[in-house]
């Protein structure tokens, strides 16, 4: 199972279902922590997903949530989201998710 990591402001911000996320690859090696921007299905339980990877959640001060989540990557997106520098990236992602319905 591959392991990924993502940052949220509060652990409670992570919700199950289809999510747009920036995730970091935790595979050992030179490319560890490289970022992917993805559409993924996320669940607290691995039973809800087919062949999921592990997703660790960290809060805005970097603290790691004790229990892992799980995800399956549906689509890879560009390295960025549209927005101006110093705008909130997480808010920009949230806006895109709302636009997707």
């Amino acid at each position: 199972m591959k392991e990924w990591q993502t940052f949220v402001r509060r652990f409670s911000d992570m919700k199950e279902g289809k999510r747009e996320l920036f995730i970091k690859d935790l595979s050992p090696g030179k490319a560890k922590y490289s970022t992917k921007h993805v559409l993924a299905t996320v669940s607290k339980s691995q039973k809800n997903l087919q062949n999921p990877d592990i997703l660790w959640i960290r809060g805005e001060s970097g603290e790691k949530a004790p229990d892992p989540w799980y995800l399956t990557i549906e689509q890879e997106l560009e390295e960025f989201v549209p927005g101006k520098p110093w705008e909130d990236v997480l808010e920009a992602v949230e806006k895109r998710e709302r636009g997707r319905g």
Partner: protein
Amino acid sequence: MAFKDHRDFFEVLERESELARVKKEVDWDGEAGAISRKTFEKEGPALLFEKIKDYPEGYRISNGTSGTWGRVALSMMLPKNTPVRKIYKEYEERIDIKIPPQIVKKADAPCKENIMLGDKVDLNEFPAPMVHEGDGGRYIGTWDVVVNKDPETNWTNWGMYRFMVHTKNWLTGWPQSTSQLAFIMKKSYLPYNKPMPIAVVLGTDPLSHIVATAGIKTFEDEADHVGGLRGEPVELVKCETSDLLVPAHAEIIIEGELMPDQIAPDGPFGEYPGYRSGTMCAGAAVKVKAVTYRSNPIVTMIALGTPPDDSSIAASLTAAVAMKKGLLRHGVPVTDVYVPPEGVTHLIVIGVTKGGAETARKVLDYFTLRRIMTNKHIIVDADVDVFNMAEVLHCFATRCHPGRGILYEWYEGRSNSLTPFYSPEERKKLKGVSVAFDSTWPPEWEKEIVPIKASFKTIFTKETIDKVNKNWESYGIKI
């Protein structure tokens, strides 16, 4: 003769027992940062990690090259044991001298020994450290010099801003939205939706890094002031993919474009105030177009955190001198300014020849006028040595009236969002508050009512002081 680069500087550090070469393999993923943190906290030497896991021989990481006053003194070609007061004075005298940089040819620039261009760019080929466990990414830009230019005025800004590896050819970073880099971006690029060329420079001469932390005035080129500080010009070379000029002897130059319409997450990161607080996902994204580097390149790092480290020491020096000059221009009768490294530029000590409410108000106005990085200001009389924290604390404890000696100023839109005690909402809106502690005797008090400090130098007559000093040895008191 000034140091051309970090490699020159390492030789002197080693000679002065200020450098440890770590030959054992260390992991860039937390271990190098942890060793560096522990070394800082034990006031140990600068470090050069010579063997990094996953990376070929010769690829190295350094830490702490300006992390003590002794090493800062050495970087200024002063003796290692130069008192802090003297380092301040020397810096104050030299920083106003401008010696413009010298442009060199590509063939004479060690930073061009190796070049990655376009789709060959791969930031993962460099041992960018995961400095602290739980940071948002691998921060390749910590002890760096970031170069950007205003096309309208030709002003080239140098600043120290954090940048992390996002993907193999993207960086994300967080120059504060109130920084000079941001000022140029907002003025000359964002209105036209144009990307801004930048260069992230690692491992140039030590004084360039120190001046990158300085509050050099807007529209003034830091490179000129570095020349003055060094006593000779900095050698610069043109970038491969832009017209920016960068230090020719640097270890690594990352050339890119800060995008006006594309953003990606940066942070969080354990920052200079000594905490990792919630400033993340509100920075800038840089598409990397080229990396040029010396053979056996060194990623110059600071494992930022609780003071002292390079950041708190360098900022102490550069900020204090800039503040002193600014306060004088603002009409404050300053004797000296000290920024104790332990206060991480949140706490400032200002000595004045005439204290009181009016002076305190002027001090607070100066510090809250524009971009605000500080928040606590202790104003002391001229009889207090601002560099002596025991004297400063005594003065603060005994002269600052809790009822009438504390002034506040609240503001929005210009606070320092890295300040740990600000709430997330305050950080988002750059809301904040600054305070001045007037620890001076009211100037309107008659001389007869001003308390006399009961110290050796102040409560005895000159004759008694001279007599005691003259006969000191004969008293047989061993101190």
